[in-house]
């Protein structure tokens, strides 16, 4: 093999990935703190008051990033699950496992902040609207994945079974995304559009994007820290883990 190519399979070994994950986690933590600090400042002091929703619209700066992350993390997990099934790499399944709690948290936060936005604007905490219901299903998919994984004693069998659950559940993501188009219910349509002009003031949009990038960096930081914990737990009988643990105490 030519040395110009990176041997990606080298990093699929938990032992080589363990120190790399720490570096990625540290860098992402710094990026996340800086971006979220700027984003919060802009959310409250730079973004103007909305002409229709007053100050109440500011919930958008956590609601939309949390919702996007909940869907995006699911797709990334499904990608890792597929890789794990195809190449039979342990680390792929560990990555999916490490992302799940963060994805579930964002799905919950999406529903929670949506509820706190719906109450003053629509007059109700909850409604069985297509978007809200499909987001709730996403939360259940995360919880179901975690429950199934931990219910199977053999970790490798648990990896495969839960990978299939993740892949089947992918069908729900486009349903969430297009729900506001397909069903004309209470949830408003998207203000960010791929092919036409966005119906949003510039600083509002910028604030939302900065918050989203901050949440993104946060997710990378936390999942890299968690994959290290998962690696230690699952590789605990490997020699390098033993040596590492003994060196520490």
């Amino acid at each position: 093999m030519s040395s110009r190519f990176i041997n990606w399979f080298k990093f699929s070994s938990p032992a080589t990935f363990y120190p790399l994950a720490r570096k990625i986690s540290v860098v992402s933590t710094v990026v996340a703190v800086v971006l979220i600090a700027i984003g919060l400042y802009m959310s409250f002091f730079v973004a103007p008051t909305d002409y229709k929703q007053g100050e109440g619209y500011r919930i958008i700066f956590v609601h939309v990033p949390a919702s996007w992350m909940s869907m995006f993390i699911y797709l990334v997990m499904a990608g890792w699950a597929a890789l794990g099934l195809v190449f039979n790499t342990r680390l792929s399944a560990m990555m999916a496992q490490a992302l799940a709690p963060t994805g579930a948290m964002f799905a919950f936060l999406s529903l929670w902040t949506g509820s706190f936005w719906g109450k003053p604007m629509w007059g109700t905490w909850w409604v069985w609207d297509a978007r809200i219901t499909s987001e709730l299903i996403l939360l259940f998919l995360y919880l179901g994945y975690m429950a199934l994984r931990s219910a199977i004693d053999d970790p490798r069998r648990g990896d495969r079974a839960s990978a299939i659950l993740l892949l089947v559940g992918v069908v729900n993501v486009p349903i969430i995304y297009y729900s506001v188009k397909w069903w004309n219910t209470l949830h408003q349509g998207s203000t960010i559009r791929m092919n036409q002009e966005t119906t949003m003031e510039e600083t509002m949009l910028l604030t939302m994007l900065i918050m989203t990038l901050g949440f993104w960096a946060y997710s990378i930081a936390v999942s890299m820290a968690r994959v290290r914990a998962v690696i230690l737990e699952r590789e605990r009988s490997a020699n390098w883990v033993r040596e590492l643990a003994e060196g520490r105490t």
Partner: protein
Amino acid sequence: MAEFFHMGGYGLYVWGSFGVTALFMIAEPLLLRSRSQQIKKRIARVARLEQEVNQ
């Protein structure tokens, strides 16, 4: 200052959203850190025990 927290009448909703989001995003890394430390301690303990048995 009071006006800032009042959020034009939307105080409960705005702070209820930002507050809970902040709570979760601060709690998650902290919980994770304590979990990692426990795992490391447990592995070290098992390794020590095995060494003692082998001696």
